[in-house]
């Protein structure tokens, strides 16, 4: 169907192409190059860069859902963090009966386990997301102040519910056998799990880009961002679209939660909220998938480089990046059209 749409566009007058904004994209390599002389050793630099990229991918996974929901629905969900936690706890549903798969020394079985965890977590967070949208968010469409308050309330209740169901003490979860350890190439060290994280992050990013830019659903979503009334007037049910985007956003948070859980190897109900801080730093990019992607990697790289040079300043440096981005582009890295 999308091919047909593309062809019909191509056969008529060629539309003026939207200019790609390269400046924010150039930030990432520029930053990496600037950091090189400060770090000194080349192999350390590669190690840090790869680790930072992986971290950025994980942050992107967790932030992408929020971006999507914010971009389309203009809803800011402060309870997003709890979906990350929920996704992380959902791994327990799989890890309980299938503990053997995690112990097995087989890459296939381990990856299958990871995939299964992700699927279950996405299902759980998707369902909870639908309920959350109905009960918590729907009555406050259009009022940012109430959204912040009410989603914070949802966060409190959901966090406490996690405590009530799974207990309040932290739960250790082991990384599957073959994903532990690191690849060592010369002086360069790459943790295996981070490589997996980069892979999954890239798949999700490309998938989202394709979905948003190459399919009919994506077209509708982008149109909904620009002008929801018009989309509705053309006969599409914008509400259904909203709900499905919210559910997809929650499911993506669940996916990010699984990745984050295996990375930290401990589960706490507050883990989602902790990482939300990083997510909010990326607000420079909120609202567009590309901006979120660039922002995530930027934040993770800065944190990694500064963490290596002067560990105590890591989080402060992120705040500084955020401030600079906001001064440079107050509307976000890739500004989204606002109604």
């Amino acid at each position, binding site marked *: 169907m999308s091919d047909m749409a593309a062809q019909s566009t191509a056969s008529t007058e060629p539309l003026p192409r939207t200019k790609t904004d390269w400046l924010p994209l150039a930030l990432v390599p520029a930053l990496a190059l600037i950091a090189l002389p400060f770090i000194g050793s080349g192999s350390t630099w590669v190690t840090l860069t790869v680790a930072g990229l992986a971290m950025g991918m994980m942050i992107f996974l967790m932030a992408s859902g929020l971006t999507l929901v914010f971009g389309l629905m203009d809803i800011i969900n402060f309870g997003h963090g709890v979906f990350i936690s929920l996704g992380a706890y959902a791994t327990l549903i799989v890890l309980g009966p299938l503990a053997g798969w995690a112990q097995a020394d087989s890459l296939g079985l381990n990856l299958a386990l990871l995939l299964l965890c992700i699927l279950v977590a996405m299902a759980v967070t998707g369902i909870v997301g639908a309920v959350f949208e109905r009960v918590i968010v729907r009555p406050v469409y259009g009022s940012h*102040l109430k959204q912040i308050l009410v989603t914070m309330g949802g966060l409190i209740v959901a966090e406490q519910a996690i405590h009530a169901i799974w207990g309040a003490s932290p739960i250790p979860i082991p990384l599957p056998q073959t994903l532990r350890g690191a690849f060592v190439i010369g002086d360069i060290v790459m943790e295996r799990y981070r490589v997996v994280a980069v892979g999954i992050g890239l798949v999700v990013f490309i998938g989202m880009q394709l979905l948003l830019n190459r399919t009919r659903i994506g077209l509708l979503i982008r149109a909904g961002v620009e002008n929801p009334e018009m989309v509705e007037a053309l006969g599409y049910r914008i509400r259904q679209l909203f709900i499905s985007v919210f559910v997809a956003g929650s499911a993506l948070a669940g996916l990010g939660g699984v990745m984050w859980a295996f990375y930290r190897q401990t589960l706490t109900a507050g883990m989602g909220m902790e990482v939300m801080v990083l997510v909010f730093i990326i607000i420079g990019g909120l609202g567009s998938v590309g901006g979120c992607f660039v922002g995530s990697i930027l934040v993770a790289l800065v944190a990694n480089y500064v963490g290596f040079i002067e560990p105590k300043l890591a989080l402060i440096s*992120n705040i500084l990046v955020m401030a600079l981005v*906001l001064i440079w582009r107050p509307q976000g890295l890739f500004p989204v059209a606002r109604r």
Partner: protein
Amino acid sequence: MSTSLSQPLAFDESRKRGGILNSLLSSDYPRSRVLSLILIGIFVVLALTPFLFSGSQPLSTAAKICVFIVLVASFDLLLGYTGIVSFAHTMFFGIGGYGIAIGLERLGATWTSAGIGFLVALALSAVLAVAIGLLSLRVRAIFFSMITLAVASAMAVLASQLSTITGGEDGLSFQLPYALRPAFRLFAEPVFGVVINGRLIAYYLLFFVSLGVFLLLLRVVNSPFGRVLQAIRENEFRAEALGYRVVAYRTAASVISALAATVAGALLALWLRYNGPDTTLSFSIMIDILLMVVIGGMGTMYGAVIGAALFVLAQSYLQVLMGVGSTALAGIPLLPNLIHPDRWLLWLGALFIISVYAFPGGIVGRLRQSQQ
């Protein structure tokens, strides 16, 4: 932005009546008989706690209520009156606490060192509030919430990392000036059967400073400045069109609120003789403040009093009640977990959500409505 939270009275008429009470309360009366009774009750109990109850637990609870009234009222200036959500309020609370703690620990247990620490804290809070305000209030209002959240958590991490200055995770314990120590006696003889020691003086210091700051905040929100804030809350665009510089007003509001929070932090540190990340800086305190403001009533200073008193009492005594219920229900799956004493926040969280939907004016708004 928000639906009308409280209906400001035609204050110009009531102002003519004059009187001390009128000027103390800035012509902003509770406007509900039940509410007035509750407020007078809270005031009397807080004022007489040392003489009404024995033991240190009630006194500590009362002190905590006083501190939180100031903290919540100052937060309400931002949330309820100006319509912006800041998550950096605990940061200023913490700065106040650390100001006193570092001053008294480093410079010795004198009033001067407490004063120096306090003034430095106030200055730092003001500078930070201006910086955050000017940077982030220019952008869309929701970004402000996210930015303050990020800045506040960075501050919390910084405070626990700079252990040489702040004592790290352990925090700082310190000695108070002699007049505030338990060993100090103001009079040789007990008054009404209560020994007037340094602890009692510390409590009354706390009580009167809290009262003063609260009345000051009440004055601020009922001043022409406060009216502009409410105008911004109701319709930012119109306020701007009328010629008020929204960014300047919002920044000023966040500075005033930050200073009041700093005072609250300093008071808490003086009372506890300790300050650490968990007592003033943690995110859970921020959530507590939100709960208190919304349940008490946004956009009403009196809501802060009700919310803080209710919350601190619930924190201290609701858990006991829930413990009883939980043991009574032992054996049933999940249910005892839900009313386990540690899950009290679950129920307050639910109450919070219901408050936002059903009565945006909180308890105070509800009481005022039933009056009419």
